[in-house]
């Protein structure tokens, strides 16, 4: 599903190359659940955003579902992202002033889908994320856990195969975090490929099949 070969990412600061990601090689199979572990600043978010096509690598090759994602023109990259990748952000990133139902619809809109169909799909996704009872509420009216369910619904609405989560539990209390892990398990059982970047210790005791990949100062620790 995800194939990364010799990936480098550096920022040039005062003419000096500062490597954020260094010679990363990683292979993730379809249906796998990967926990990307590492301290703050180790490069988890950067790696995740390169896999999602939100950021470009400095060199190297990234294939997602067979597509060379870092070399796709914007139009193709965007529609690929809309259809194949669902992202759950650390701070949820819902649109303010827009109801959860409409928020969940956003990824579908760009593909030119009809309004009725989009609304139905959003409704289904909200149900899947267990938040359909708050469909008409805007983000301000919701708690952190509820916002996150909304964000999950949005990530699932186009029925993508790859789900990327960046610090999904950082803004949640323990109960909500556990419930998130429960949702993750359901997604895993549905056969989705999942990558979670986190330093939350809760993810160390998952009760379903997963792989832990550790990243430190931009390099993977051990075998990828």
């Amino acid at each position, binding site marked *: 599903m995800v194939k990364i070969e010799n990936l480098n990412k550096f920022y040039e600061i005062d003419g000096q190359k500062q490597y954020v990601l260094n010679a990363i090689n990683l292979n993730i199979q379809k249906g796998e659940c990967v926990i990307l572990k590492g301290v703050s600043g180790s490069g988890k978010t950067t790696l995740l955003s390169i896999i999602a096509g*939100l*950021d470009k690598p400095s060199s190297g090759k990234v294939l997602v579902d067979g597509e060379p994602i870092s070399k796709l023109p914007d139009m193709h990259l*965007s529609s690929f992202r809309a*259809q194949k990748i669902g*992202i759950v*952000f650390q701070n949820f990133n819902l649109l303010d002033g827009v109801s959860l139902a409409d928020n969940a619809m956003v990824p579908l*809109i760009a593909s030119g*889908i009809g309004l009725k169909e989009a609304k139905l799909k959003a409704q289904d996704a909200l149900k899947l994320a267990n938040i359909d009872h708050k469909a008409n509420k805007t983000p301000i009216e919701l708690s952190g856990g509820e916002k996150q369910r909304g964000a999950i619904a949005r990530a699932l609405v*186009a029925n993508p195969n790859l789900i990327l989560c960046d610090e999904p539990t950082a803004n949640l209390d323990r109960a909500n975090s556990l419930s998130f892990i429960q949702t993750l398990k359901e997604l895993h059982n549905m056969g989705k490929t999942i990558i979670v970047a986190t330093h939350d210790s809760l993810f160390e005791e998952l009760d379903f099949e997963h792989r832990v990949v550790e990243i430190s100062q931009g390099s993977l620790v051990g075998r990828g």
Partner: protein
Amino acid sequence: MRNNSFFYFLTLNLLKEKRRFVGIVLISTLLIFLLSSVLFISSSIKHTLNQTLIAQPDFIVQNIKGGRVSPIKDEQVDKIVDIFGVKKVTKRVYGRYFFDDKYSALIIGVDFLDEQSNKKLAKIMDSVDLKSFLSKDNMLVGQGVLNYLKSHYYTSNYNFLTPSGQMQKVNIFKALNVKSSLLSNDIIVMPLELAQKVLGLKENELTDIALNVPNDSEWANIKAKLESLNFSTRVVTKKDMKKAYENLFNYKGGLFLVLYLIVIATFSLLLYLRYSLASSLERKEIAILRAVGWSIKDVLKLKFLENIFLVIFAFVLGSSLAYIYVFILGAPLLKDIFLGGANLKQFTTFTPVVDYSVLSTIFIVFAVAFLGSVLIPVWKIAVTEPKEAL
């Protein structure tokens, strides 16, 4: 459109952001209102003038003495009738009569027995009993004249003072009621011979002679023939008059428009700055859209439709308000500025004419300025990196 999710989101976004747009829409509406009002007024006046021109003859033959128009002898009429291709040769007697320093009216003499007279007058005369009208020295007066006479206690007749110092008593027969407000208010219609007396013309003298030439391509030819009739003859064509009207209003309208474009340029600059200073919140929202799968093209589409909607909204609002202001309220304030205080009474109301060319002029000026100035800032927001959402 109804089932289009993109438009649904667009309206959602517009409603959500309405507070951000209020200022821009208000200023835009005001600017459009201003331009629309001025253009509506000038096109209405032009229309009214052209309307009266339609009824005007193609050619007017005048006598020039010392560089000024002076009465023309009526034997010229016979010579003109003989020119091949000339139709509807009409003797015309008219002139201004000053009731006092401030008020004057146009006296029009009509040869009532001549069926070739002005079409418009024929319409007026429909409701007048010609026999009793011609039996005495009678006149028809416009509403403005009637009001003036009433306020000076002349209810049944008026004594005109002719240039030779004699009094000429004329009865007020009836008030005129004509659609074209430009003509109707301050005119007096009376039989030709009576008008000659009041205006101090001799019996064989006319103000000018009007004629028509149905075949356009004969115009130049006939104009030359007319001019060669007499050394002191001047020929004015309908096109000359049209051009004179056109230029008259172009001066005022054009100067206004140039000033207006300077205001618009300032507005564009402000708009450019306003859009360039996109809030971090707005950037974040675009980044989110981009992150969940919107392409740069989609965002550009959203943002441009948003702005096009603003332009259309302000345009419809501004021009409708201007319509109400000019044609229903009669353009208070602006009328005084535009007409410069002269001949004000002629335009109590404006005939509502709004043609495509005026509307498209307003729209083009505004849309070019507005969209042109937000073009680059909007693009800058649209290419926000999606990773800013993380």
